[in-house]
């Protein structure tokens, strides 16, 4: 792993982008890495475009500025493509992960994106089938770790189970774990 990984999450208020940014951070912490997670605070409203960020590093993180050049961008809502410049500042060898039923090639074409790696997964469908609600955030964590190799699936599942089991019913916990596993398997890249 390179020195500092910066992740930017694009979602709409209510889709769980902020939660995803925190969950990824705490899963990385469980793997003994240093972390930061923070949302972009503005006039948050349900449905409005929002951003959240995660930093992960093997050494303590000193910086406290905004994330300008993420190496990983995750888009929770495909309707943001074309509305928000989701690849803004994405590093040359960066990874874009989009929740969509389209293929990576279609997304690349739509964004006229050169270089980088594009991954897609239908996280909303997976969430609908495993959780009964189209909440794409946890499955996208599964897609992210598969696409980037940042963390191991086992440790993420263990950490999220640990975090969720005191708060939610076993059905919701199981549903989330299943969603992460399915997205991990179903994510496609090019």
């Amino acid at each position, binding site marked *: 792993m390179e020195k500092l990984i910066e992740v930017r999450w694009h979602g709409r208020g209510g889709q769980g982008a902020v939660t995803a940014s925190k969950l990824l951070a705490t899963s990385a*912490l469980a793997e003994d890495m240093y972390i930061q997670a923070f949302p972009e605070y503005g006039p948050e409203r349900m449905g409005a475009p929002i951003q959240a960020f995660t930093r992960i590093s093997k050494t303590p993180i000193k910086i406290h500025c905004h994330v300008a050049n993420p190496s990983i961008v995750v888009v929770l809502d495909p309707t943001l493509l074309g509305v928000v410049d989701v690849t803004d500042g994405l590093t040359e060898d960066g990874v874009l992960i989009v929740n969509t039923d389209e293929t990576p090639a279609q997304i690349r074409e739509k964004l006229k994106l050169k270089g980088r790696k594009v991954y897609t997964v239908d996280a909303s469908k997976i969430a609908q089938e495993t959780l009964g609600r189209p909440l794409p955030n946890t499955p996208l964590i599964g897609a992210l770790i598969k696409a980037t190799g940042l963390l191991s699936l086992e440790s993420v599942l263990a950490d999220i189970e640990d975090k969720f089991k005191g708060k939610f019913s076993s059905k919701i916990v199981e549903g989330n774990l299943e969603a992460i596993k399915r997205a991990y398997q179903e994510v496609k890249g090019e």
Partner: protein
Amino acid sequence: MSKKITALTGNEAVAYAIKQINPDVMAAYPITPQTALVQKFSEYVADGLVDTEFITVESEHSAMSACVGAAAAGGRVMTATSANGLALMFEIVYIAASNRLPIVMSVVNRALSAPINIHCDHSDTMGARDSGWIQLYSENAQEAYDNTIQAIRIAEHMEVRLPVMVMQDGFITSHGIDCVEFIDDEKVTKFIGKYQPRYPLLDVNHPVTYGPLDLYDYYFEHKRQQAEAIKKSQKVVVEVGNEFKQISGREYGLFEEYHLSDAERAIVALSSTAGTAKQVVDELRAKGEKVGLLKLRLFRPFPYQEIIQALSHLKAIAILDRSDSFGGFGGPLFTEIRSALLESEKIPQNVNYIYGLGGRDINQVDITSIYADLENIVKKGKVEERIKYLGVRE
């Protein structure tokens, strides 16, 4: 990395410190501009995890008034606020210090209105810099937690007996999740010790009056004593920091010197910006540039002698202010440091940057540009523009 490290916001970290301190009274305004810090603490109250009398008041003016009353009565008292909340408290902030009440207040530094803004700058606490409170600034959530615990000891020290405000940067630190290592409850309890009130109102066998009429016959003498008391607190801040290292392994002094002793150019900054500057120092040092940083922790009392010692060998210094002093000659930090440097035999070239108002981001590129500016100043041997505004559209 130790397994004891948890992922928390600065607000959660300080709320946890307050839980461990378990004050007798916490009086706070529960609505914006208050932060989630007090909300988190109220959960500890609701869950019966603290013995604190938690008073939710109708305004910050009342919050500090309740703190003054409770502290005069003999309680260990804490509160928290932010931005306009501190501004509304202002009258009673002075009364707390002048009555020598060792209240500890957590302040999330945020911009003042107008226009309405919820993000970080230091205008709120810089406005209170002459109120007689000791001021500790924190770089990150860990320091906010550690400073809160140390503040109790500093405030309650028998030679100090003054209120302390502990700052963290709004949103950047207060709402961002960071790595925090807690100290065990027993160690914190032992470290802060049992509170020994002096002249408590509730000691009915020794009746006293707080804050009576005090005109030109004695007011000035009392102010003079107050000036002496806050000066003495500087030594206590260092002593408490040394003792704190024994239970935490973490070092705290008046300020932190980062690659400063052999540097030629340096930045002076408060709070989270210092962290970003450290990263830039690392990168420039890797290229062989002699750059350094002084991160000031204690702004009041202002440790001018130690600062002169730490800075006078430099060729050029950039002093970063996250607040403006409208109509003044530079920001508050600049004014203090430049004034202190006049005591030095050798005065480094110095320049002031007002930055980051209302949460405007300051990143590594900005800080790198400051070190480059300093290089030019060193080459030219003079400062062309003394007070600069960084990262603003003009």
